[in-house]
């Protein structure tokens, strides 16, 4: 294809085209800036796919694993026999919730220092007032400002199956800054939830980033942003 057809690029990035098709796409890419830009984004998605092991797409029980199942059931029975089964709590019914930023705009009061920053507002989604967008029930949202580094961060912690998806929007970062997100749980253990580079656009409009941690949402204590060089940027106590 010498003609412009971005829909070829998916199979191209995934390495699924025949050699002569690859050559044609290569030729087109050499002369098409639009496709080259698109290619960069598709390659990012391919990198994401690479985080998942291929075994994740096998289904069903193991072949000849019945002994393993029996052993596991024995352990579970033994552990549950005399006492109660593990800690369980009722899950909150899903309700319509607000997206933080809409609420943040309405919060004017500075409510005291938290984790080296000024807490601008905080909410859990169980008593959210105005609703514009929906965030999952059980989400926590907090907004802080750090006078020392001149940054303001809105952080949202959303519950997933036994883990949390944390998104932040940060104003006041410089373009090119390399940032890391750390999440600390209530036992004081800290997890890295990913790292990113601030684009020039994000430096102006606010840098958005999301990452996951293997910590249930009700166990998340704080979200901290540092530079990859280890310099503190801003911390939100959740």
């Amino acid at each position, binding site marked *: 294809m010498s003609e412009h057809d971005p*829909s070829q690029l*998916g199979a191209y990035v*995934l*390495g699924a085209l025949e050699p002569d098709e690859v050559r044609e796409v290569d030729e087109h890419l050499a002369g098409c800036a639009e496709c080259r830009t698109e290619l960069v984004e598709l390659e990012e998605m391919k990198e994401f796919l690479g985080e998942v092991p291929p075994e994740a797409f096998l289904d069903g*029980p193991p072949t000849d694993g019945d002994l393993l199942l029996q052993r596991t*059931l024995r352990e579970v029975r033994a552990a549950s026999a005399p006492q109660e089964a593990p800690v369980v709590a009722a899950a909150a019914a899903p309700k319509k919730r607000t997206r933080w930023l809409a609420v943040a705009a309405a919060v004017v009061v500075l409510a005291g220092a938290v984790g080296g920053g000024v807490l601008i507002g905080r909410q859990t989604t169980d008593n959210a007032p105005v609703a514009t967008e929906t965030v*999952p029930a059980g989400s926590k949202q907090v907004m802080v400002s750090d006078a020392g580094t001149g940054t303001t961060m809105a952080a949202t912690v959303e519950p997933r199956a036994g883990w949390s998806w944390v998104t932040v929007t940060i104003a006041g970062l410089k373009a090119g800054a390399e940032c890391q997100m750390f999440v600390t749980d209530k036992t004081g253990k800290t997890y*890295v939830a990913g790292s990113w580079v601030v684009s020039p656009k994000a430096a102006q409009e606010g840098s958005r980033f999301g*990452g996951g941690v293997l910590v249930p949402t009700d166990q998340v204590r704080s979200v901290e942003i540092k530079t990859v060089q280890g310099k503190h940027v801003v911390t939100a106590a959740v």
Partner: protein
Amino acid sequence: MGDVDRRPESAEALVRSLYAEHGRSLLAYATRLTGDRAAAEDVVQETLVRAWKHADDLTSGKGSVRGWLLTVARNIVTDRARARAVRPAEVAEIADRPPVEGDHSEAVVNSMVVLDALDQVSPEHREVLVELYYRGRSVTEAAKELGVPPGTVKSRSYYALRALRTVMGPGAEVAR
């Protein structure tokens, strides 16, 4: 999903259903990481027991249960390798096992995020990505497998990657 039933029968039912749905995936993954079927079975057993202990987290939130299980399995393998590594005599043995070297917590967490995202795109999009990327099939092979023309496989894989990008977070910067 509401209250988790506490009766022993339901504990057993939970373990049975997790095993029936995810057992093969878990055992294959643990076998690759440990290089040893017996060790892998121990890892799967411990993973399922932990799943039962965290049944509430696992069933009340939305998100990929399989991602949770694979992540826990990986953590168990890593923790065991570390525990052995503190005994100097066995260090040489550990060095032979690249899959559990170093700290993979970040990559592991991203695998949950990606599986979660793959659960949210359409089945057609998910299936074409699985064929082309995870099973390493060519467009021609995937077309035969899925029973659609090669041109459809191509355009679907393109729109699948775009859909994934949308689900991963509109405007969010991508983790490195």
